[in-house]
């Protein structure tokens, strides 16, 4: 396969991996429940 295509393909795979990690660890679109579950301020 052409080297350029290979590099593009690898870049896309890498991008998917980075986006997955960012979504997993940094940017989480899910809203968190802000309410306390108990009286000891655990924040969970």
């Amino acid at each position, binding site marked *: *396969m052409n*080297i350029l295509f*290979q*590099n593009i*393909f*690898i870049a896309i*795979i*890498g991008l998917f*991996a*980075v986006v*997955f*990690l960012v979504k*997993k*660890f940094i940017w989480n679109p899910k*809203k*968190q*429940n802000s*309410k*306390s*579950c*108990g*009286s*000891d*301020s*655990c*924040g*969970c």
Partner: protein
Amino acid sequence: MSKQINVALIGNPNTGKTSVFNALTGLNQKVGNYPGITVDKKEGICKLSRGVKAHILDLPGTYSLNASSLDENVVIELLLNKNDKDYPDVAVIVSDVENLKRNLLLFTQIKDLKIPTILVINMADRMSRKGISLDIKLLENKLNTKIALVSTRKNEGIGDLKNLIENHKLLSTQPCLDTSTIDTEYFNSLKQAFPNQDLYKLWVVISQDANFGKIDRNELDFSKFKTKSKSELKRLQQKETIKRYQFINGVLKEGQTIDATKATGLRAQFDRILTHKVWGYIIFFFILLTIFQAIYDWASVPMDFIDSSFASLADWIKASFPGGGKLTNLIAEGVVAGIGGIVIFIPQIAFLFLFISVLEESGYMSRVVFLMDRVMRRFGLSGKSVVPLISGTACAIPAIMATRNIESWKERLITILVTPFTTCSARLPVYLIIIALVIPEGRFLGLSYQALALMLLYLIGFGMAVFSAYILDKILKTNRKTFFVIEMPSYKVPLFKNVALTVLEKTKTFVFEAGRIILAISIVLWIMASYGPGKEFNNAETIVEQTYPELQGEQLENKVAAYKLEHSFIGIVGKAIEPAIRPLGYDWKIGIGIVTSFAAREVFVGTLATIYSVGSALDDDDKTIKNRMAKEVHDNGDKVFTLASGISLLLFYAFAMQCMSTLAIVKRETNTWKWPMIQLFGMSLIAYVVALIAFQILN
């Protein structure tokens, strides 16, 4: 269209609720999370008659509707919220035939919420052995319910239970008792203030310590109603409990007879030995020793097989697509190696959960928790912290997930923060290779120095966990006093189906949750190691050929690969951090290993294997990674791996927080980045300081 009945499976812990769930749903089950919190949500489908299905929700074990833990909140929140999509058409309350009195407390509370309720009396096969007989008709009349006498062990009574679920519309919603009699005046004023609300539901909401996501008592308009103080509400709760037990005692007096002469005292005898203040610990120590020995011995065969299979697969891919270039390398060295890095841990995780599940199912785990509470409490931990700390020896991820049953947030948080200090299996390959390099092969009292060093590292890890817990206990403040209550269930022969399902579910969680992260990181690392900026990376061949004109063939290829790695993105990172790690005795190559292993520790050995497999002469002695590492020298000719740098590296890995998956799990469990960040920087700082001191003293 098929009809679906929503069923909530509720019960005290250790009543065999999960066994009933497994019997009803078989393999048609899945585990998720309740939205916004980290309590496992187990649900499954049970086929009833033609076209009718039951959606079974296995709710966390709870003793009553007075919530004290995260798990119990989930039960109350669901039962109070008719708008919840999982709100039950019928509640199935699972009780244990030997503990009916205590189990019926929760039953009467749920019955009073006017939810159609079925009572399952489980473990019916033990009745004759324990001298218990029940008048089912009488109990059904007194409790206004239908009863299914079930034995999941013998697979009896499940058909009756399915029939009852299907005919749930015939069930009475009549409450068991009138709670308002505990304080008539108070309940009357409550009724006047909220005429449209169900009185018992109101009482449950008002009397809880907790706020609920969907049913917030602040949303109720209390302006027309003067509520009581917390202590007065607690007193009323106690009064309610006493009233309920009086009712239950009355019912059981007529409906249950126990022939004490038939009951054997074997359980008490076992308990005396297994919870003994000396023998209890010795037996537990030997059980642990056996488990870990078995994990390492038994897991090594499938692990070796997986390892060699993935290596063969990578070789096959490279051989099948010789002209594939970088894409082939990405698949062989990045994707396949990444998947292999996940799959290789399956045997250890499966074996660990097999043993934990057997210990739990047999009833022994509750004794261990009781036993260890005496020791752990002195260090700010509870007996329930023992399970995570033990599990942490295999992997911190399931260990941290196992902290969910610790009611006290402070104890739970401390356990979460200190668990990664225990020596997980990912540290093992790092320890083994460094020990082999720097610890001599001699023996002391028949034990090899290397084995002793390895044992010492395990002890250091556990010691640090306990010591950190002690310090955190002094630092973290809480306004809640903790208490520890544990139920001692009867000893049972573990059910194979339950053990198998637990192992399957836990392994699946590891592979699909942590696995995806490890795979993504492997791909990113491979790209960072295979690409680099600037002329030095792109013109590596020409530069090396000019610098080392004497090199030919494989030696030249290796030198080019080493030069490329040094100038790749990952090499640049390694060089950038070299000044910071030099005082610890490490070079930039070890630096790369450390950087990559912040994703996962086990990556360290793989990274070093790649780095040290290039750029050196290839005589027979150098084919093993150990020999190549042993020959590695600094620019001034000094050896890289000496006793000082080796010990420093071992201690660094013993204390550093190098596992992104663990950090992700801590974030998920605490719902904030604050604690994983404290853990990451705190542990890394400890690791750095200890490694620095060790190197400077030993060097």
